[in-house]
């Protein structure tokens, strides 16, 4: 996951990166296959032309704040790193003050 602007443009060849935008305007560029961990994002990006996001590879979440979205992107990386892993999987830390919002966002994103 990276938030650098210099080497990424949404329309990179093969659409390797997607842009997730939080409610307060923070933009998160993450690899497409990491974002597809979420079934909702997968549906948004691959649905047959129903969602505008399909064209621009950017998704705006009006209900998810930037701290919550940042943690969700960390979770995508954590999940990709430790899936099918033979080593011990550490616990994914969540700050208690964000727990409710992350739960609602995780429920919405189905991840």
């Amino acid at each position: 996951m990276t938030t650098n602007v210099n080497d990424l443009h949404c329309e990179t060849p093969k659409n390797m990166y997607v842009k997730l935008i939080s409610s307060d305007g923070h933009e998160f560029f993450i690899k497409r296959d990491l974002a597809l961990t979420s079934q909702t994002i997968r549906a948004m990006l691959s649905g047959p032309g129903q969602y505008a996001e399909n064209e621009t590879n950017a998704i705006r979440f009006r209900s998810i704040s930037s701290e919550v979205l940042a943690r969700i992107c960390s979770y995508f990386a954590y999940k990709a790193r430790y899936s099918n892993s033979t080593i011990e999987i550490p616990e994914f830390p969540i700050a208690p003050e964000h727990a409710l919002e992350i739960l609602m966002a995780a429920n919405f994103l189905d991840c």
Partner: protein
Amino acid sequence: MFNQIIDQPELLPTNQLLQGHLNSSVYLTNNVWKIAFSPCSKYLAIPKQDIYGENCVLIVKCSNWNAKDIHTTDLSVCQRFTCISGIWSLAFGQRKTEESISCQPILLDPNNLLLPKTRRELLNRRRSSLSVVNRRHDFTKDLFLAAGLADGKINIWNIDTGELTLILKDHQSTVCGLDFTSCTMQLATCSHDTTIKLWDLLDDGNMYKTLNEWTHVINAVKWSPDETLLCAVGPYELVILYDTVTWAELHKFEGHLHSVIDCAFSSDSALLATASYDTQVILWSTVTGEILKTFAHKIPMPLKIYAGGDNGAFVRSVVITKYNHNIITACDDNKIRWFSLALNDQSRMIYERTETNVLCVAMTVDGHTMAVSNRNGEVHLLSTLSTTGTCHPPLLKYFCRLLINATLGTKRKEVFSLPLSQHLIKYLIYQDIKTK
């Protein structure tokens, strides 16, 4: 799907070393009723009896039970404690300092800061003015082992120094169950003299409460991981939950048909699993008090007259694995079974393993290893790395649920007033795994 068994739980290479230590001709083949792992997962306590009739507890130390190469492991019997009478129960206890406990910031409302949410906070407040200097024994640092004996005494040994630190004498009869809290060195003991006693080891072993409302033995007591609940189980289908701050009876669970012998809490204290002689393990919600799942060990389920009597399939022991993926049970039909908790709506067994005369199952806190003991005086070590769902990390929703339930503490009924949709509140109280 993360809860499929990919590899079978295997006997570990270190198991051979352990057998070498245990099978020496000095020891009799006794019934090993209880074994215990330490909170740091490095020590295993096994009660044995030697040929001179002396009862002893062996402490086996190993830094990595799952080591592949038995020549490089450091498995050894590091201590051998002797006692006068038979050992019925064992528990390790170690005080955890505030830094290593995850702090409990306010989830709901800043005004609730004033009320202690967990027993830990209540005790810390009461004890903040007491100093350790005035205490005769220092229980604040080392690892301790408590053993409940047949004559009613409780021996407490310091594992690091090997000395018998304290003997607690108050029970009139066999101490058949005991449990330490995870952080504050409180000890709950239950006995054949029909009482439950609570001891505060940080106050020099002061016994501050006795619960004696019954006329029968209490088989086991367990603290919940967040120390807000105490579960007591016994004959006549007794399963009872106490609030540890007020000592009010929170729930009396009805549903078993025979004596209840063992219980286990999930890591967020929201689930309670109880094992009974009626061939069932029942999973209860500690928030609502209802039955979520029933795990049967004899299929078809025996008729009530057999469930309440001699059926040959008493369930002796139950543990819940790390992250609450699975339940592992030991049953008198010589089998250890794994049941999945995360499979919605189903109470299917996902794996079983034969182990003759199995008595007790214990798991390390880190979730890597389990040990089973039997009536032949043996203890076997099995790897659980492949079965605790460690092939795939849990869902983010899952982590949120564990965290929210663990943080609610004594205010667990307030889950219903959280600003969430009904669907999510049902998810938090584990309605999604309830058998329909």
